């Protein structure tokens, strides 16, 4: 898709990690956001601390862009590797602004324009060669005709503390960039760089675009955003942490791991102010069991991790399930298996979130697709955990967790806290305060000692399987909680009859739970010839692919699954029934969502997979290519359901993503 069609601008800055790539990208992205654009920003970074090629991509438009897209329109390259690493994304006619300090290998260019700018020299002139990133920033802003104040203000915020001199030099570097841009002829600039008309500035209600949306631009592009009206620019991890805070999470225990660490560091900055606490534990086993202990004692508790740490939590999940203890566990998936690709994205823990750990016990698995989802599903997770007294898992992924996006405001007021059945309807009063609210179901104020006839029964058999909890501190609520099988009072038993009923009670809690309302999002034609199905961070890319297909005359739709377990089978089946073929898009090598669908809903004969497992976020063009491939083939009504070998990666499953190299180069910049 070219810029004319999708009306976006894709800009990236690349260089050695540690050269200020992140801050340059971040300032650029945030400025566009504040100017009213919808922005999607993603860092591609290596698993090392300093050095190694890193790219910060910013995609902006007047409509809500929600993925990196396929194309790079402008690359500001601080080193040669950046060009090599991003070459596949550079569209014909793309502009590569590179530091004149090196000569790019232009032999494999694809009709891109190379422009050498003496970034380092200009930075040197401003006072320090390391500020070449700031020169690049000014240059980029200047070329797009963006106002200097926004960028100067950003630098002021950043360096304010470090005192005048550094800031001054940075502002000088910025200006050198702007000045360099001013030397470009307006035609040249316009040919390469044209940002779509700006929407309303940040803080306002609607990023009302003056562009008439058409074709692949979403129909609702000009609509007012939902929420409390304030547009935000933030990552999925940040939104998730905010959702947890808003939902009353007051205890977090965790162990650092990429890409989940931000959730902990965010909460450590904000929780104590609300009376909560964060503990960095010795390992993930301690993290999850500490959270379970806190959840048992009546605090909304959470832990977050990624693959390797998540695997270590498996045993404890089973404990939470057996003891009916609420706890929220977040898995921000990254490239696996094992340590895998710690800084790259993947969605290969779906199976583990649903099937990891031993024995049968109730759990709920939610999978946010956007920062808004991260916020609201995190909040919902705590309600579900306490209402159904079981672990709730949130399967996020690196691309979702780390990408920063413009969102239409997150409304704390929409978060309702439902604490589920508590005897006396309340949590324990502090020791200092007079005891209150101890009467209630379960005869807590009766004469029966806990465990005796008439006494409180923690695991009382009830209609819906949920038994009101007494939290420690609750007068007369004493009982045993155990990971061994137990009777209604909580005492250990091996009686087969009781055992069977307890299993039914526990698993029965999820029986009526239909998550389709929060767990499915459907967009597009009601009876599509092709239905795109996805989960997690691929939402944006699938959306764009869907719109492109529709613009090409196809009847298509997009079903995004945000509740993986219990699976919203009925609602999914209804959609599937009406679809011609179904393409399941996911970032793993074995088609885990497709497998889940086959198991829970069937439809094997209609299912196709679009798999990606190279660590790079899914791109619309890859989905498009695979979709066209499927639509070109005839439907195969008599086909046998695909068996495991078919679901395994075949080279054919990887759509050709990389455009062929070649074509002429142009040197558009003269000193």
């Amino acid at each position, binding site marked *: 898709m070219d810029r004319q069609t999708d009306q976006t601008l894709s800009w990236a800055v690349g260089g050695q990690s540690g050269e200020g790539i992140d801050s340059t990208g971040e300032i650029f992205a945030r400025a566009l956001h504040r100017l009213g654009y919808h922005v999607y920003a993603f860092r591609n970074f290596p698993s090392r601390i300093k050095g190694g090629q890193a790219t910060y991509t910013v995609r902006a438009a007047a409509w809500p862009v929600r993925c990196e897209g396929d194309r790079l329109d402008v690359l500001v390259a601080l080193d040669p590797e950046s060009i090599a690493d991003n070459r596949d994304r550079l569209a014909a006619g793309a502009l590569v602004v590179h530091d004149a300090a090196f000569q790019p290998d232009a032999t494999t260019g694809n009709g891109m324009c190379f422009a050498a700018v003496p970034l380092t020299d200009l930075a040197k002139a401003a006072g320090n060669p390391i500020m070449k990133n700031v020169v690049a920033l000014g240059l980029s802003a200047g070329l797009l005709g963006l106002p200097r104040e926004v960028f100067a203000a950003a630098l002021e915020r950043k360096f304010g503390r470090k005192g005048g001199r550094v800031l001054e030099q940075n502002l000088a570097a910025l200006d050198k960039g702007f000045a360099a841009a001013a030397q470009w002829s307006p035609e040249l600039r316009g040919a390469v760089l044209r940002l779509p008309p700006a929407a309303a500035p940040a803080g306002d209600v609607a990023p009302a675009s003056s562009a008439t949306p058409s074709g692949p631009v979403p129909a609702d592009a000009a609509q007012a955003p939902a929420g409390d009206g304030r547009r935000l620019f933030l990552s999925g991890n940040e939104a998730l942490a905010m959702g947890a805070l808003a939902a009353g999470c007051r205890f977090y225990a965790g162990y650092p791991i990429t890409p989940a660490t931000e959730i902990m560091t965010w909460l450590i900055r904000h929780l104590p102010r*609300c*009376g909560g606490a964060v503990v960095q*534990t010795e390992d993930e086993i301690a993290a999850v*069991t500490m959270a379970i*202990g806190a959840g048992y004692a009546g605090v909304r508790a959470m832990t977050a991790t990624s693959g390797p740490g998540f695997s270590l939590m498996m045993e404890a999940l089973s404990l939470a399930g057996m003891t009916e203890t609420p706890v929220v566990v977040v898995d921000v998936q990254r490239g696996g298996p094992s340590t895998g690709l710690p800084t790259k994205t993947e969605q290969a823990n779906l199976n583990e979130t649903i099937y990891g750990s031993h024995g049968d016990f109730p759990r709920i698995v939610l999978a946010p697709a956007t920062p808004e989802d991260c916020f609201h599903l995190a909040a919902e997770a705590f309600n579900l955990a306490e209402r159904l007294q079981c672990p709730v898992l949130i399967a996020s992924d690196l691309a979702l967790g780390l990408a920063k996006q413009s969102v239409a405001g997150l409304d704390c007021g929409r978060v309702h806290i439902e604490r589920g059945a508590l005897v006396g309807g309340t949590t324990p009063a502090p020791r200092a305060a007079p005891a209150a609210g101890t009467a209630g179901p379960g005869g807590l104020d009766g004469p029966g000692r806990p465990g005796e006839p008439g006494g409180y029964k923690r695991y009382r058999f009830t209609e819906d399987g949920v038994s009101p909890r007494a939290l420690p*501190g609750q007068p007369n609520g004493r009982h045993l909680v*155990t990971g*061994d099988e137990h009777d209604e009072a909580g005492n*250990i038993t091996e009686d087969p009859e009781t055992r069977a009923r307890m299993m039914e009670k526990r698993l029965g809690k999820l029986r009526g739970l239909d998550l389709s309302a929060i767990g499915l999002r459907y967009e597009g034609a009601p009876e599509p010839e092709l239905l795109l199905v996805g989960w997690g961070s691929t939402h944006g890319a699938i959306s764009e692919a869907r719109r492109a297909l529709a613009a090409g005359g196809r009847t298509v739709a997009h079903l995004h699954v945000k509740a993986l377990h219990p699976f919203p089978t009925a609602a999914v089946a209804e959609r599937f029934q009406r679809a011609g073929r179904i393409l399941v898009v996911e970032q793993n090598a074995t088609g885990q969502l497709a497998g889940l669908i086959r198991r829970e809903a069937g439809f094997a004969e209609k299912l196709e997979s679009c798999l990606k497992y190279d660590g790079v976020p899914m791109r619309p063009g890859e989905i498009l290519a695979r979709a066209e491939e499927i639509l070109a083939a005839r439907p195969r009504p008599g086909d046998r359901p695909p068996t495991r070998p078919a679901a395994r990666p075949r080279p054919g499953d990887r759509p050709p993503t990389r455009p062929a190299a070649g074509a002429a180069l142009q040197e558009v910049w003269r000193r």
Partner: protein
Amino acid sequence: MTTRTAAEFKGPVRPTWCPACGDYAVLTGLQKAAADLDLDPDRTVVVTGIGCSGKLSSYFNAYGFHGIHGRVLPLAQGIKLANRDLTVIAAGGDGDGYGIGGNQFLHGCRRNVDITYIVMDNHVYGLTKGQASPTSDKGFKTVTSPEGTAEEPVNPLLLALAAGAGFVAQVFSGRVEPLVRVVKRAIRHRGFSLVNVFSPCATFNRVNTYDWYNEHLVDLDADPAHDRTDRAAAMARVLEHGGLVTGVIYEDPDRPSFEEALPGFPREPLASLDLRLGREAWEEILAEYV
């Protein structure tokens, strides 16, 4: 001073330990200590691991959490941090605490949350029928070490001291009075306290019996020369006697607990907080992201 009796801490379930198991004395000792300290059963939580020892929570009248093997300490810390009004007592076996739970033990000692940890150390894996445990004497013969174990045993006191525990004690099931006295002191200690109890397994350990302990134990509480505020001295004494000492070995009454040391940790139990977020707090947070 108190009207409570040990009987009030008798739980609803009858113990199923083998006759002569050392764990009976731990149970009754803890019940006596709880009564003496006038603990409120409704504000007391006994958290246990998996093992014969782990059954203690079934037999004690209080809130009880019988968790998973080796994770009694993070569970107990989570409970205490969630509600600091509770008295939290963790208990388990030597395998549970020093075997699989070794990392939780190490870091529990230095984190110093205000809980008491009672280890029923019988030098053997009881519930799984008699394999060598981390505290088994070198050369101890079991089904998993038919020719005797090859490893040096763990020395729990030394480890706790090295890991920075603020209260380290050891007692013996065969002597209930000091057991009660030391457990009380441990519960009263502000911060993490370890009480390692030599609690003979009557079924699988024919070496470390009541008689054997009676013969070998040295009571440091009875030794006026022992300076229990000096960590290095405590270590030296433990080494000197091959770990076969009883009493309060080390105690640092001034060390702040984790709850006291953690910046911003509130006085009010987290479990009692009003969970609603103020409008201003929310606005302040959003301001970072506009």
